[in-house]
């Protein structure tokens, strides 16, 4: 049962990591506009980038 110390520590570390990731995402503005990307991926023509593949 002593493994629980390690397991809880790992779980806490994972939770803290996800919290940091969430705070980063909010600061970075990832949640500012969630509607446009869902439409944007359906529009091929508007890409100013040409898609090519090499090799």
């Amino acid at each position, binding site marked *: 049962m002593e493994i629980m110390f390690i397991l809880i520590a790992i779980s806490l570390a994972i939770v803290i990591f996800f919290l940091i990731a969430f705070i980063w995402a909010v600061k970075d503005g990832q949640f500012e506009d969630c509607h446009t990307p869902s439409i944007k991926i359906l529009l091929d023509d508007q890409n100013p980038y040409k898609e090519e*593949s090499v090799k």
Partner: protein
Amino acid sequence: MKEETIYYDNVIVRNFAFATVLWGIVGMLVGIIVALQMPFPFLNFSQYLTFGRLRPLHTNAVIFAFVGNGIFMGLYYSLQRVCKTRMFSDALSKIHFWGWQGIIVAAAITLPLGLSSGKEYAELEWPIDIAITLIWVVFGLNLMGTIAKRRVHHMYVAVWFYLSYFFCGGNPSYFQLPGNPSIGFQKLFHICRSSRCLDAMVVWTQCRGIFPDHTLSRPDVLFLA
């Protein structure tokens, strides 16, 4: 504004696609054999092809080989286009692909030989678990490197699911390691030696299951989980 041409890596997608089809055929063929061995026990005609040995081969083949390659195929295709950039490293892509196929072949050899840990969906012996962990790290580096060098600021929602797949999808392998007394992991970390209790604790808390983890990367099938 300068116009750029992006060269996506389609070779890796094609490779994973071939692998998906190949292992799909192999895995489901083994599944049919195993299914027939139940009403027709005479089909257990070789010690290497008994039901007990072929069943984990079928489950591992369809879960890791078929679905795994399929997920990687979809991921490599869509991630590049949604991030508007080629993969972070072509070398890592190749190592990921060939390493993964090597793991599958290792499973296909060791399981019919009877080398199994006996844990459902984690039957592969510990050297293969270590290989899975290494290849998973390679995949994670490639994934996160690509996201880091993306040309689109907003991370399309699927990218978050791919990240979660990296965190949750490979865990049956490296979380099996503490429970295995033969590789000295417990001695190394001064962990309690009652292996079975330790193993159960680790598995129940950390190995959240392959099926849910595979489906987390596929939000359209989340309803199945």
